[in-house]
């Protein structure tokens, strides 16, 4: 499975999760796991998603989510999952 990790950090507002999920559903990306917390007063969310059926280039999704973050006023990063698993799992 081709997994990616999406992180959203920023000032909490209404509808952040809704807008990110809408983008993902429009591009055939399935959400596998979401964890969300408030750290130092900031909204922090991590999503693990399945990109097997992604209908655009991975780098396009990276750019698309980044632009969406700019619109909402939060920082959205999308990275391939391996950078985290390689670093934290022997």
């Amino acid at each position, binding site marked *: 499975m081709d997994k990616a990790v999406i992180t959203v950090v920023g000032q909490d507002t209404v509808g952040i999760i809704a807008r990110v999920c809408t983008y993902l559903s429009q591009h055939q990306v399935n959400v596998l796991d979401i*964890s969300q917390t408030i750290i130092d007063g900031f909204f*922090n969310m991590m999503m693990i998603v399945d990109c097997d059926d992604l209908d655009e280039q991975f780098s396009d999704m990276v750019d698309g989510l980044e632009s969406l973050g700019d619109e909402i006023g939060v920082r959205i990063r999308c*990275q391939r999952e391996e950078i985290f698993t390689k670093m934290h799992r*022997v």
Partner: protein
Amino acid sequence: MLNITEVRETNEMIEQEKLDVRTITMGISLLDCAAADVDVVCENVYRKITEKARDLVKTGRGIERDFGIPIVNKRITVTPISLVGASSCKSPSDFVKIAHALDRAAKEVGVDLIGGYTALVSKSMTPAERMLIESLPKALSETDIVCSSVNVGSTKTGIDMDAVELLGRMVKDTAYATRDNDSYGCVKFVAFCNAPDDNPFMAGGFHGVTEGDVVVNVGVSGPGVVSRALDAAKGKDFEFLCETIKRTAFKITRVGQLVAQEASKRLGVPFGIIDLSLAPTAAVGDSVGEVLEKIGLEQVGAPGTTAALAMLNDQVKKGGIMASSYVGGLSGAFIPVSEDKNMIEAAKSGCLKIEKLEAMTCVCSVGLDMIAIPGETSAATISGMIADEAAIGMVNQKTTAVRVIPVYGKGVGEVANFGGLMGYAPIIPVNQTSCEAFVTRGGRIPAPIHSFKN
């Protein structure tokens, strides 16, 4: 399944602690580019580099985007040019033509630096190797991104003092040839002892004759990450400190391993090695000097510096070695003065002197690196510095190197600016007592007794 804390930790390393992959370096063999005519050699060299490295920069950028990890430089190393040009070059200026071909090819594919304008003369010089060395002032002043190195000694062969003497003069001539730019040419040259064949870092990177046709090597960097991790070790004992450094080095190297495998897959080129060095930059929070200070020194250069560096170097290796299938290159802590904010400050304040730096090179992974010295320093003194450093490497069976910049027209207390990753450095004093009679004796220093292991 990953958790949010782990994801945050990785991204904080990248965003706040300046974790990066310093370089993806493609090694390319140019042995099959040799010909009887130097213009044909230049054509062959240009063609092979532009063909093999065509997608290197694009691939690097793609990996950067997909994983969200900065890849600061994309570089190329090639077979030592003294070998490639031996059959065709009849004069130093013939070699300069090949340097131009390298420069053009590297710019065409968009890499940051190309290394391998190199001669390996640890026992003695062939006429071609001597010509390449004599071409250095012209080659380094007329090209922009060509890096050069000369291996003057090894544990097995001893030290070629004829080459050491010649290099002192060439470093001075290069400084003069690039005098309008704080003698920048010397930044692109390094003299080595026991040079590794697979070093992805510059200026000493070249593609050794032990290597295959094309290979991808990766150099990682993360002094800022180690520094931040050491905040948790304040006041704790050495066991805790070492454990912290090892764990951090493991994590940094794992990122390098991932990037190397991905680059290898996307480029269709075998993966060579990870060089797990702590490579600083002059930016705040990206300093090996800061790590040493967090270990417990008021400033780098204080008593205890050599021991702290020895420990740091060893822990970096111990942590990193488990993280990668193949570790090579230099792999340790770099201590370049001009590329490290805390080292610059220590040199400025007089706490860090050249003699202490020399002692530090006995236990770090490189040598006297990026040190600005007075422009009036004599060629013989520079040769003496190279000889001293080569002797440390030869006797201790380790890699050592010298990259000093005798900044033309500037003296102690003034600052040399090299720009970008190369940073800036205060000019520090060098003992100017003559060693001319020593470096001009001619011949070579024999291999040490412990080289006879057969």
